């Protein structure tokens, strides 16, 4: 075992170890539990940063920090993990957000307490999310993919708001339903693959196989349908999004942040990593449909946002729209589109995670999420919190110079000129729809700010003494705010990493 081949395993499983350690601490020692949460997520983040530091950005293609070890020979599944330019931003984001969530939990433990269980589940969740981005074996990928379901179910079900049980089971059943079809698709790929006379679950080998002989077209169409369904539900693509507003709205703040920040990206990542490169013919057939659903999602989500009365539900619906831009980029099957998609994933993870933090903190003060009840004047009452909220909302609507801009604009740009096999006119229609969506997005965010931030403070809040941003909020938010600006100004922070592996991936579609 060297650093080179064990680093990502250490980073991925450190949170799981943390969960076990926390489970053993007596529950009376509340402070210790919270500190341990920060220590373990922090340690994992440090390892992740060291990985990012040791990552060879210069032209070296293929996986780094790779480990391909024996796991279950009986079913030809291997413990194959590694990291490349596509995984790296999402991988680091996972650890960063989880750490910041643990910091936030230092001060804000949602009702009904039980900090121990809360942090233990969050840590298990972290391992599942991180593992998904580094698994290069379909079975391993699936195990990590499913590992997030149980902790998230309990996070929503125990610490959620009023309608939590319904939201939790809906989330679980809906995503499970999709993922079991995905599993069938994986098994189908396994038995139809032929790498030197062997069936394989290895994603890289399957990609090579696809680049060579490949699966038959008819088979690809069926399997893409099965795998795509599982991924699409996770993203979620319209019309499979209905679990999302419930889950995001009912989840505790940390749960929403991680759901929006990381969990959704697992779906889009799966498209980029598995569905497109292994099933390229089917991808070309499905791309217009995906593009159409993405365009619908963008417009539909914007319209839905305009109708929301609940602040958190509004943010949740905005996720559907942003993920629509990501899917639109992917559907163009162009390097620009995929790069935009990955950028969009990272940017959305940071911005929407931040928005959910803000909404959580607003709720913590006001004990309501109804826009009408808050009734405006947030800037007057809580200037710092209001300011941050306004800043992040504006970042989310895609203002140039902030992180939200690049993913959206490049996704639209790529739709102007999709891959050769696709109908250009059709995608230009999607682009126009997306453009209208951006305007509507700006509209609903600004209207939201107008109703929440601006105006005079309603009578009933005047006598309340709310504390403005506290230390835990400053510490957990500042890194995200810095990242929003940094990515807006230096998009190369992400594009520089993703460009090369995306180009390699796109050779499957004839350059």
């Amino acid at each position, binding site marked *: 075992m060297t650093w080179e081949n064990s680093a990502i395993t250490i980073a991925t499983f450190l949170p799981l170890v943390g969960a076990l350690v926390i489970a053993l601490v007596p529950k009376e020692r509340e402070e210790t539990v919270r500190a341990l949460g920060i220590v373990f997520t922090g340690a994992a983040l440090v390892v992740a940063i060291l990985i990012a530091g040791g990552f060879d950005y210069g032209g070296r293609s293929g996986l780094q920090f790779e480990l391909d070890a024996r796991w279950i020979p*009986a079913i030809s599944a291997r413990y194959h993990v590694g990291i490349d330019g596509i995984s790296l931003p999402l991988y680091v984001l996972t650890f960063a957000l989880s750490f910041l969530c643990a910091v936030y939990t230092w001060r804000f433990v949602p009702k009904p307490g039980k900090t121990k269980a809360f942090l233990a589940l969050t840590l298990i969740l972290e391992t599942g999310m991180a593992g998904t981005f580094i698994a290069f074996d379909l079975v391993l990928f699936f195990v990590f993919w*499913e590992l997030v379901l*149980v902790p998230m179910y309990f996070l929503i079900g125990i610490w959620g708001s009023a309608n939590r049980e319904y939201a939790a*089971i809906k989330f*679980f059943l809906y995503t*499970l339903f999709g993922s079991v079809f995905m599993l*069938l698709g994986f098994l189908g790929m396994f*038995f139809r693959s032929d790498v030197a006379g062997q069936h394989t679950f290895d994603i890289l080998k399957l990609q090579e196989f696809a680049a060579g002989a490949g699966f038959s077209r008819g088979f690809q169409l069926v399997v893409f349908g099965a795998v795509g369904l599982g991924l699409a539900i996770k993203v979620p693509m319209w019309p499979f999004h209905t679990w999302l507003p419930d889950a995001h709205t009912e989840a505790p703040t940390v749960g929403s942040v991680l759901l929006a920040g990381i969990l959704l990206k697992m779906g889009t990542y799966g498209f980029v990593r598995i569905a497109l490169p292994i099933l390229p013919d089917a991808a070309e057939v499905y791309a217009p449909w995906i593009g159409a659903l993405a365009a619908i999602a963008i417009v539909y989500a914007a319209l839905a946002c305009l109708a929301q009365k609940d602040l958190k539900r509004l943010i949740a619906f905005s996720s559907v729209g942003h993920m629509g831009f990501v899917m639109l980029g992917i559907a163009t099957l162009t390097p620009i589109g995929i790069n935009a998609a990955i950028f969009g994933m990272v940017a959305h993870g940071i911005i929407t995670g931040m928005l959910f933090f803000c909404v959580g903190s607003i709720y913590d003060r006001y004990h309501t999420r109804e826009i009408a009840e808050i009734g405006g004047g947030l800037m007057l009452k809580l200037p710092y919190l209001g300011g941050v909220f306004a800043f992040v909302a504006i970042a989310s609507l895609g203002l140039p110079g902030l992180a939200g801009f690049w993913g959206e604009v490049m996704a639209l740009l790529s739709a102007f000129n999709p891959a050769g096999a696709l109908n250009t006119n059709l995608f230009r229609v999607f682009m126009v729809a997306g453009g209208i969506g951006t305007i509507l997005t700006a509209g609903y965010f600004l209207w939201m700010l107008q109703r929440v931030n601006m105006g005079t403070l309603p009578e009933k809040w005047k006598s309340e003494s709310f504390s403005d941003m506290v230390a835990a909020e400053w510490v957990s938010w500042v890194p995200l705010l810095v990242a929003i600006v940094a990515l807006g100004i230096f998009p190369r922070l992400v594009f520089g990493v993703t460009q090369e592996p995306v180009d390699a991936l796109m050779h499957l579609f004839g350059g």
Partner: protein
Amino acid sequence: MNQAIDYYAILPEMILSGTILLVLVVDVFLRQKRKWLAMPLAFVGVLATLIATLTLIGEERSTFDGMFVVDAFAVLFKVFFLSVALIVLMVSLRYFRDGRFYQGEYYFLLLTSFLGCMLMPSSRDLLMLFISLELVSAPGFLIAAFRKADPRSNEAGIKFFLIGVLSTAVMLYGMSLVFGVTGSLNLSEIGQALSGTLPDGQEPLVLTAILFIVTGFAFKVSAVPFQFWAPDTYEGAPVPVAAFLATASKAAGFAGLLQVMFVAFPNQHEFWAPIFAALSIATMTIGNFIALQQRQVVRLLAYSSIAQAGYMLLPFALVSADAGLNQDAFAAAVTYILIYAIMTLGAFAVVIAMTRESRGLLIADFAGLGRRAPVLAVAMTVFMVSLAGIPPTGGFWAKFLVFKVAIEHGGIGVLLAVVMLVNSVVSLSYYLAVPKQMLFVEPEFDRPMRSPVLVTAVTVLTTVAIVAVGVWPELLAHFPPLSTLVGR
């Protein structure tokens, strides 16, 4: 027939028989307060049997003119049955001691049932198979009715008895037809006799016989439409007995079924594979949908066990002319049965711990258990999630292997896999009902719930086993190759 008896091969059975008699005799001389000592005695006896069985690993022995065989398949199942026996004994102690039952008789009957289980995977002869099956069931009729004061327990016993006798009669009739056609009782000889083209008029006879035998076994493993006895019996019987019926007794049925179908009738697969497809679909679907309605936890587990039987029947529907595929199907069925038994035993152990607090064993009674007994609550959650087949638990790999064979088979296999996975998703909603009560709902009173030491030990043990298999499924592959039966 003048062949010498291979005593080494039957050593475990002899030790177990000795223990059974010892338990019965010793019980007579124990005072009422000391009656519980029958359990440690039985425990030691089973442990000795287990050790004797472990020495047989890797052996290939055959005695009584091929009626009794020791091979990898038999040893695997014997070790499994003995482990189940140990667990059932552990969870029985408190239950039967507190409940003023006839303890000596109970352990005597329970072990006799397990003796039948032990014989089952070794039986390669219809007659032997029949005797083992009866040996499993007959004591079961009695211990199912052991809660004498409760009419539901009487109902449990009588239902189980009537159905058991009926199914055996049907099966026996089928066996007699097979004997009439082939002139043999030995399974592999039957297989050979039926491998060629049959003389005119014999084909329908053989197919009828297969149908009868399958029907008989379908009762034993509680497959739809022969399942209706199971929920009533499980609910009425003492909970440790229900645990025994849902795991060891069911697994014994499957062990017998595997041998009959894969050894004696593989050549008629075109006839019976579709029957199993229908049985499997009906069993999992109906089991799951009725389970959704359950409010009582033992009934929930009963319907869950029916649904799970549907998954175990699925590999039977995939048998074809391809020997390699058949081996995979066989291995998938065996693995499923073993993992299913661990999860179910664990769940029953938690229920047994609950019996001290809740007479009705309603799911609602589990409210707030997460606070009152965190270990049990976490364990129960693991079992439920595992039964639903969510990674990283053992239950996932059980399902995974079945899916894998089904996809490998293609055609109808894919259809069956889709039905099964829709069912798995449906099942999640009732499996989660229990953790939901335990963790989402606050307890009525905060007093910690105390569970007997042995029961807690069992839940912890099974939880560790389920998670260990989930993370490192290779553990199962270290079992001796499962192909010995099918490969021949």
